[in-house]
């Protein structure tokens, strides 16, 4: 357990807004081991981005942590000071939309070098001032990672502006930005959804190779089981802010046990002949149903489901599962 690089335990987070108290995360619980690619799957609005920002120490404005811990190698990421030290430096980040993530009026080189400037490299001389020579070191490192993400002519690319690159190239540059500081964990929030299918495939392949080459762990957010199958070692499924099932990719894809996991997978067009969808709607975080939040849409729901939130239990096959109907198998 203690060898986890990232552990999110029992995380409950709510945001006070104009409409009332939104209970966005409700007992999210999973861990990432060094070097592994962990998928985080769930429908739109289930709280994936909120979770990612919270892990980076940037919970939404007005957020309250009701319970739980978020730790990076045992260091508390819910402490803003600690998180500021860790993000960028030890946890890299790849955003969802490469078209929006860059500031359009600065060169890409300036923007990525800025990450290195504030986070530094692990082998930078201790206590060195940020001067020409340090900047040159960082630039050399940046050119190295730009080459690794297959940006042609990286020296020249540094002086170009974001709009002079295609979406795929921009995402490669952002990946380089995440790798540049030699982090041991990268958070990627749907890094391919803004790209066309062919580019998606290339970026996924690149990410898989880089994660292995650099031995970096990755928390990979997606709502696409096809992507999970391609890149993830393990996967954790969320529904409406609750973790419902976590297991290895083959376990989850070949034998989903939580009713939601199975139904979500059935929605995936490549895995079913007809477009099924899940009847009903995701509950609003303002008025979450009691107990299991999936119960109102679940064909197997019974009274037990709504009386208490099912705990996330270790199943005999090694997965974690939060469903009263599956507990007997645990």
């Amino acid at each position, binding site marked *: 357990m203690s060898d986890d690089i990232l552990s999110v335990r029992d995380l409950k987070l709510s945001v006070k807004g104009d409409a009332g108290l939104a209970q966005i995360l409700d007992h999210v619980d999973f861990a990432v081991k060094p070097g592994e690619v962990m998928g985080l799957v769930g429908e739109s609005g289930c709280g994936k981005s909120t979770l990612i920002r919270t892990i980076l120490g940037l919970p939404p404005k007005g957020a309250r942590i009701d319970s739980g811990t978020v730790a990076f190698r045992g260091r508390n990421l819910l402490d803003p000071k600690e998180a500021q030290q860790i*993000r*960028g430096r030890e946890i890299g980040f790849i955003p969802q939309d490469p078209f929006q993530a860059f*500031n*359009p009026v600065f060169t890409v080189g300036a923007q990525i070098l800025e990450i290195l400037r*504030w*986070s530094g490299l692990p082998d930078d001389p201790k206590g060195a001032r940020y001067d020409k020579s340090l900047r040159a070191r960082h630039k050399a490192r940046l050119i190295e990672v730009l080459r690794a993400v297959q940006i042609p002519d990286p020296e020249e690319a540094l002086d170009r502006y974001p709009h002079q690159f295609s979406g795929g190239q921009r995402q490669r540059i952002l990946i380089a930005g995440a790798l540049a500081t030699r982090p041991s964990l990268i958070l990627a929030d749907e890094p391919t959804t803004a790209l066309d299918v062919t580019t998606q495939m290339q970026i996924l392949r690149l990410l898989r190779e880089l994660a292995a080459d650099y031995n970096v762990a990755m928390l990979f957010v997606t709502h696409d089981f096809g992507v999970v199958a391609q890149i993830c070692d393990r996967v954790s499924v969320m529904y409406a802010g609750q973790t419902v099932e976590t297991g290895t990719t083959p376990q989850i894809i070949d034998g989903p046990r939580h009713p939601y996991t199975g139904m979500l997978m059935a929605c995936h067009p490549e895995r079913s002949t007809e477009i099924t969808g899940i009847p009903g709607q995701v509950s609003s975080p303002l008025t979450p149903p009691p107990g299991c939040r999936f119960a109102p849409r679940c064909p197997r729901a019974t009274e037990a489901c709504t009386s208490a939130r099912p705990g996330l239990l270790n199943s005999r096959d090694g997965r974690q599962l939060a469903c009263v109907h599956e507990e007997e198998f645990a």
Partner: protein
Amino acid sequence: MLLFLIRRLILIIPVLLGLLLLTFLMLRLGGNDPAAAIAGDNATPEMIERIREDLGLNDPLPVQFWDYLVRAAHGDFGVSAYSQRPVGIDILDRLPATLELTIVALVLASVLGITFGALAGIWRNSIFDHTVRVVSVAGLATASFWFAIMLQLVFSMGLEILPLRGRLPTGWTPPPDITGLYLVDSLVTGQFATFWYAFLHLVMPAVTISLGGIATIARFTRSAVVAAMHSEYAAYEQAVGYPRRRILMPYVLRNSLVTPVTQIGLLFGAFVSSAVAVESVFDWPGLGSYLVEAIFTSDFNAVLAVTLVIGAIYGVVNILVDMTQGLLDPRVAETM
């Protein structure tokens, strides 16, 4: 960039021609007789008729306009009926005063507008933000001549800390004429007392002219800053560990300057027209007060030439603004 500059400069020419033609027609069809204005009050009809003949006022209008253009192209803008001097000389005398006033007003509006707007955006919904908003609305709604007179009442007549009118105290020798801008000329020749007085005289007219501009620029800057702070790239910069102050400066701020800079260009037109009223109130010896005199005395040559000069300045300022935008935004630069 150079090609862009040349193209834009050439494009000013048809605009100026149109402006001249419009002014020319309005003056000629307006019913006032420039010959009578030149001849003075005691002129006989024969004298006026002779002047009309001399000036070519009996020619068909197109011929008159063409003659004017030909002379103007050679730098001859005619003689002012009011001052009896060549209009070109009059304008050269008066232009620096207006330039100094509008440039100071523009700098004031830009610096204050951008500062207030940026801080209001950064501290959104704070007391400061609300104050800036209320003051902006008031600033936009205030008529500049009224505000000018209030300033005079309070600071000149009441508190007696700022001079009432003119560019320098009566009888004070102006600095040597290098640029014609008193602030610059007195500074480079080391006449610090003159500099100080020139500055004091500038304060009220410049503040009056810039008032609406400060408000407009502040509002545009504020909304640009708010949008930039809530942008995806600001969220990204935060997520990858930029410190907050770094995100604000330069990343958010530089991005937020693009819109207000456009406004500054547009505002310059408003500044010049407001200068016409403000110069009269403060007795500022610039083109504005010259234009007012010229209009009241049917001094057609002077009106035409001032129109031409103001139009040309407006065109040049807007080219400068576009070039600044190119410097701020590489996507704009690419279209140049």
